[in-house]
């Protein structure tokens, strides 16, 4: 599995939150890897552990109540989970950057955009204030903010949502990281702006040559930009495949159900879109059996007792399911 292009490898990551209501099993043994320059999409419904996985990776989980129970995050021969907090500060923003869902709340309202932009540069590079300013102007220009020079002195409330997300992207890319984690960066934006931001990110990714993890619940976005997809459900990875494989040949009932729930422009409206019955499991209980079993149309007796592990079916295409969805029988 590990070849010389793989620069990030997550092994058996488990994150839990110890709350007064009980332990939340948010991430239950997630493993994946990432190659240089690759775009990995992570899809799944709200609360399935997509964000928590990525936040654990950067150690941004608040401890307590959160706790990373076990696992390894190997980034260029270093285990990020074993680094000290100050070593971690050198990784965040410089090597691995992250952009967030809601640009309206992700910028500090009392600091100018310029100050927030130059801050990353001051923290991670030896540039002097003038150079930082120059670089900040270049960055704003690069993400398509007109009149960048004057806008540096503006406060976030003077920017629109799409503009703020551009600023966030500029901040994230300030130190040309080798990995950008985008946590649903277009969810809070309207559709036209979404398209602009996606185009922008694609272009910038080309320019920088970085790898990217794109968290989303929009399968339409995934098809257009990702190389590989991970489908998560209840804190587990249930399927992992190259993007075309996933759309053409889904191997997990959950992925199938998701794709059936997606409106398609190329398909005549023969029947209504299919929704997935039931609701996701309560993460407060330790999972026994397959977490999707209660909602699965292929459910077998074994599914309730034993949780399937993620296994490779064909080259690079993995699924965690006892059932062969093509035949409907056990694998």
């Amino acid at each position, binding site marked *: 599995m590990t070849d010389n292009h793989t620069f990030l490898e997550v092994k058996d990551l488990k994150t839990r939150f110890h709350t007064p209501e009980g332990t939340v099993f948010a991430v239950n043994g997630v493993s994946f890897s990432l190659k240089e320059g690759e775009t990995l999409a992570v899809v799944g419904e709200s609360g399935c552990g997509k964000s928590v996985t990525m936040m654990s990776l*950067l150690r*941004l989980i608040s401890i*307590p109540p959160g706790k990373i129970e076990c696992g390894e995050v190997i980034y260029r021969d270093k285990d990020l989970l074993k680094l000290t*907090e*100050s070593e*971690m*500060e*050198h*990784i*965040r*923003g*410089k090597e691995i*950057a*992250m952009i*967030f869902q*809601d640009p309206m*709340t*992700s*910028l*500090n*309202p*009392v*600091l100018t955009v310029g100050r927030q932009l130059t*801050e*990353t540069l001051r*923290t*991670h590079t030896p540039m002097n204030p003038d150079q930082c300013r120059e670089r900040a102007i270049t960055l704003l220009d690069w993400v398509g903010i007109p009149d960048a020079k004057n806008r540096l002195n503006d406060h976030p409330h*003077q920017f629109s949502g799409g503009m703020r997300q551009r600023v*966030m992207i500029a*901040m*994230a890319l*300030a130190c040309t990281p080798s990995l950008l984690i985008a946590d649903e960066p277009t969810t809070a934006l309207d559709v036209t702006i979404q398209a602009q931001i996606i185009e922008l990110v694609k272009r910038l990714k080309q320019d920088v040559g970085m790898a990217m993890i794109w968290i989303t619940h929009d399968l339409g976005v995934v098809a257009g930009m990702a190389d590989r997809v991970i489908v998560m459900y209840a804190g587990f990875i249930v399927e992992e495949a190259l993007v075309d494989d996933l759309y053409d040949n889904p191997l997990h009932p959950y992925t199938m159900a998701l794709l059936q729930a997606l409106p398609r422009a190329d398909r005549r409206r023969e029947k209504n879109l299919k929704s997935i019955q039931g609701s996701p499991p309560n993460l407060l209980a330790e999972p026994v059996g397959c977490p999707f079993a209660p909602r699965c149309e292929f459910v077998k007796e074994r599914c309730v007792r034993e949780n399937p592990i993620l296994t490779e079916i064909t080259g690079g295409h993995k699924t965690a399911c006892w059932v062969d969805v093509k035949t409907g029988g056990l694998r």
Partner: protein
Amino acid sequence: MTTTQNLPDQLLVTEVESPPLTLADLTWRRFRRHKMAIFGAFVLVFLFLYSFGGAFFVTEKYANKTNTKERLQAPSAAHPFGTDTVGRDILARTIYGGQISIVIGLTAAFVEVMVGILIGAIAGYFGGKIDSLLMRFTEAMLNMPTLLILIIMSKFFSDKIANVNILGRTISGSVIVIIFIIGLTSWPYLARIVRAEFLSLKEREFILAARATGTPNWEIIFKHILPNTIAPVVVNATLGVANAISSEAYVSFLGMGVRAPTATWGNMLENAYRYIETAYWLWLFPGLLIVLITLSINFLGDGLRDALDPRSRTV
């Protein structure tokens, strides 16, 4: 074609769109509607001019000069505010005493703000055991009667520091002691406010975003969160100045505060209570000044509170 020619030249963007109001603009607009606060501000400016400008007209030597032959004189042309028990001119003493009182007020509030911010910020940001420890300490401080601590501490420490020379003036070391005693007993309330602000602000998404760019903790505390708490801190600091001035007056009145010959509005009252009926000018003028300054600072603080409150949307 003809209609377009009649139109004015293209409007500049700056003419169509007024520049957005900054926080300072908004604050000022709300503040100036607060009549009492404006009044307070004017009185404060007057008292500043009185204390610091007055020094150009009378010397400190004159203010401290005793003349037992002229003791307890009623207000007259020579001594507009009268003279005290050892014949010093009360007008001159209120001028120099005012300087010390104001300086004590400002510096004690500064000490209060520094300690309050530090303890509140650390407790609120780090949470957990550090928070519990610091907050139990803060609550303990809050539960002790401040005046009692003030009296006991000034009793013990007022004489311990030698007189200091600042800008050619000799100032009783007790002034410095009083500043620290007041500053170090008044911070708990502010610390709790700052902690509460930090508790809610640290959960905000922009703090997570700042952490995600590798910003060190101390920078997040002081450069990202603290500027967001500036409104309550400013209001509290303002009221802290008034509190410090009246606390100083209180301990000095009891004879345990600032030592003679350095005058403050507080210690001028020290022996006045024996002459409440016989020599009203001994307590009237310094007392009036204390009332004026604390009242006007409180009005100012009220105005600032309303002006800086983001929820009050009246512009």
